[in-house]
């Protein structure tokens, strides 16, 4: 009988702990036998076990306990965290997760959970067997280089890495006692002594091989070890720059956070949004002065604070993908690394959660179809280990997430053939690359030779595009045959409140995001010159010549509001993707705070506009997208 009031809490926290566990287990796999990594895993497991006991879910507690025992042995050095064991432990977390899901549906007895006995039996069985531990021998290498190392251009780190390739580095110690103070330091003189402990099944000649060029002139000693010292303190590898550090210290800080129901947050956000609109209307009626200024400032501050409440880092969605890649790559016999850059990029919480589906699919696609097997890669002159990158960054008011791989790319001809086959195009159609690759997003379209369990059923990419569109974003693809493929997701950061400038284009009011505006100037016809080749106009601005876009013509707005001579055209200098340009509008109305509403949710993907807003009088006003405007302008000139 479970403790009812603790159950909902355990369901949520337990889920988070299990996600953490997965992450730490993957880290442990990279640096097995590292004391701190083992401890991390153990701590989380222990916490999970305790919480399950508090919630009186004893079947879970038992399972956790079995896993904890196994981890105990690793911690005591009796067992090694081999790849097999990590796989078993990951299966264990899957089991715990499955049980947690059962509990969420109301089943707290947890009888007959499929796999319960099998998964846990793996741990019990291994306890009896003799531990397949680390290699039983090793070497201790001491390197003291001659003082003028530039004479032979010795690189200690390269040597240490080569030694690491022979087995496992248990420790790398640098003795810096001989390094003089900075004032006396000569950078060309090597004062550091290195002591490396290596566990390996290789014999002495292999080690000597690595060091052969430095034996001469330097003081290198290699000592064989019969017993490997049980305690190791250093990581086996230093994380490269830009790679997500595998050793994030997760110190259990006292809780500086508080749980808040997202529905409460949504309500707050909604109310604050209404306040923004009401304040805008009020400000229009207040005389200028201190009160108006204070109101404006405080309102602004309120919007900003509340806006950030819903933003959470992408990490929670991105990290579990490491496991996805690992498991899938293993099952396919491929060697694949997942590199995540920018996990701290923030996005609205709701968006972050809904991205896990599309991102998971794209990643699986890369692993399954994009990346080749190790032998195929080597045959193509590539390193055997393939890489999938997930890069997240903020650009403008959007978050861009790129999923790329260095695999085989997408074969344009095969896509064309498939499209032809399905009657989507006819024989004589000439299509641009972009149009061809767009077919990939067609429902049921897949150029995979056979469907696998994972993907290739062709239901994927159209679902990805639909899901992303539902979040107000879009998906693009670019590829280089033989080199790789990149899928880009562009999403609005949040259903945000932004500052905009209301302008008139023809008889319509539109809004331009303030952050894209460099400046606005009265349009002086004398500053306009035709561009080379008659392709449009240029405007002189601060000593530079900017391309000119006349928004009324570009956006095909029905002209019912006066002829050109009546309006006072203004040139708004905007910052686009590739430099600045001048957008000509028929008038500027004024600054305004806008609550951005997505257009894409209801099928409106209008190029040139990033969203819309509801004005104080209930009318809809569109928000211009300077980057898209720039593209449209260039395209229209080309015709």
């Amino acid at each position: 009988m479970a403790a009812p009031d603790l159950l909902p809490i355990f369901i949520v926290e337990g889920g988070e702990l299990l996600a953490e566990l997965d992450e730490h287990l993957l880290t442990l796999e990279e640096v097995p036998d590292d004391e701190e990594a083992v401890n991390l895993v153990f701590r989380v497991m222990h916490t999970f076990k305790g919480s399950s006991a508090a919630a009186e879910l004893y079947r879970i507690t038992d399972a956790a306990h079995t896993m904890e025992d196994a981890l105990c042995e690793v911690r005591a050095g009796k067992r090694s965290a081999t790849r097999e064991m990590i796989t078993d432990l990951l299966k264990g977390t899957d089991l715990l997760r499955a049980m947690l899901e059962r509990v969420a549906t109301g089943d707290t007895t947890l009888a007959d959970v499929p796999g319960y006995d099998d998964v846990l039996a793996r741990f019990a069985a291994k306890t009896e067997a003799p531990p397949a531990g680390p290699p039983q021998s090793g070497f201790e290498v001491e390197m003291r280089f001659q003082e003028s190392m530039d004479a032979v251009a010795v690189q200690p780190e390269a040597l240490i890495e080569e030694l690491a390739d022979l087995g496992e580095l248990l420790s790398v110690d640098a003795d810096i006692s001989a390094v003089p103070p900075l004032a006396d330091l000569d950078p060309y003189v090597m004062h550091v002594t290195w002591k490396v402990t290596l566990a390996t099944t290789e014999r002495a000649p292999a080690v000597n091989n690595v060091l052969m060029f430095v034996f001469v002139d330097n003081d290198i000693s290699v000592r064989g070890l019969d017993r490997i010292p049980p305690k190791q303190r250093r990581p086996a590898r230093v994380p490269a720059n830009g790679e997500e550090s595998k050793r994030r210290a997760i110190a259990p800080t006292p809780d500086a956070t508080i749980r808040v129901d997202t529905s409460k947050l949504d309500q707050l956000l909604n109310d604050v949004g209404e306040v923004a609109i009401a304040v805008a209307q009020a400000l229009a009626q207040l005389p200028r002065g201190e009160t108006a200024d204070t109101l404006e400032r405080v309102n602004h501050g309120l919007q900003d604070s509340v806006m950030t409440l819903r933003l959470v880092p992408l990490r929670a969605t991105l990290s579990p993908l490491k496991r996805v890649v690992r498991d899938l790559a293993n099952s396919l016999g491929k060697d694949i690394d997942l590199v995540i850059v920018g996990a701290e990029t923030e996005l609205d919480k709701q968006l972050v959660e809904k991205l896990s589906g599309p991102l998971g699919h794209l990643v699986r696609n890369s692993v399954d179809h994009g990346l080749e097997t190790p032998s195929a890669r080597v045959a193509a002159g590539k390193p055997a280990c393939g890489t999938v990158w997930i890069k997240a960054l903020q650009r403008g008011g959007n978050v861009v997430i790129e999923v790329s791989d260095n695999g085989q790319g997408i074969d344009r001809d095969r896509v064309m053939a498939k499209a032809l086959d399905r009657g989507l195009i006819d024989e004589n159609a000439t299509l641009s690359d972009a149009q061809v690759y767009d077919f990939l997003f067609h429902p049921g379209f897949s150029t995979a030779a056979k469907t696998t369990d994972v993907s290739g059923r062709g239901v994927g990419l159209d679902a990805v595009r639909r899901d992303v569109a539902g979040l107000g974003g879009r998906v693009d693809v670019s590829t280089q045959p033989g080199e790789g493929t990149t899928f880009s997701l562009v999403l609005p950061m949040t259903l945000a409140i932004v500052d905009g400038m209301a302008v008139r284009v023809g008889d319509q009011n539109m809004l331009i995001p303030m952050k894209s505006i460099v400046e606005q100037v009265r349009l002086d016809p004398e500053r306009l010159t035709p561009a080379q080749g008659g392709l449009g106009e240029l405007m002189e601005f601060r000593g530079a010549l900017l391309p000119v876009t006349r928004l009324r013509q570009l956006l095909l707005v029905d002209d019912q509001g006066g002829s050109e001579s009546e309006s006072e055209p203004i040139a708004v200098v905007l910052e686009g993707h590739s430099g600045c340009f001048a957008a000509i509008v028929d008038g500027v109305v004024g600054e305004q705070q806008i609550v951005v509403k997505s257009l894409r949710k209801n099928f409106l993907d209008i190029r040139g506009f990033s969203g819309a807003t509801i004005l104080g009088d209930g009318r809809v006003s569109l928000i211009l997208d300077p980057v898209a405007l720039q593209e449209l302008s260039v395209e229209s000139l080309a015709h």
Partner: protein
Amino acid sequence: MHNDNDNANGTAGIDEFGALAAGTSQFITFFLAGTEYGIEIGRVREILRSLPITKVPRVRIHGVCNLRGEIVPVLDLLALFGMVEATRESWTGVIIVDVEGRKIGLVAERMSETLACTDPEIRPVPGSRIPTGFVRGLYAHEGRRVVVLNVDEILAEQELARLAI
């Protein structure tokens, strides 16, 4: 062909107590350019009499409206069918259609009586000017002819993308 559930009004599938017989579906119907169309009632969110519409460039729709804070496109089905569209003055209502949370508004010249009928009564219609995916079939009974639409197909993303200029 009459069945037991027909009442005097010829609306099959509803008995004298107004209850739906098993296997019948209900449709909201409306007139557009002289033809009566039907949309499954489950897909209709609401019907609005009149509402301000903001024009939108670069898309062949009438514009967008503000539906309680949500931006919903308003369009003429005839535009999707590649036929001549109705004039603004001839509308009397906009039917807000909802498929999985995504909404559009379809203009109607005149609303008509709700239709209840069984699946077999909707016959396939060969050689129609309307793209076949959009139409489930034709209901023809006692002088009333209703083109029953397949709204899920109509609201598929790529179909609406065709309206972009």
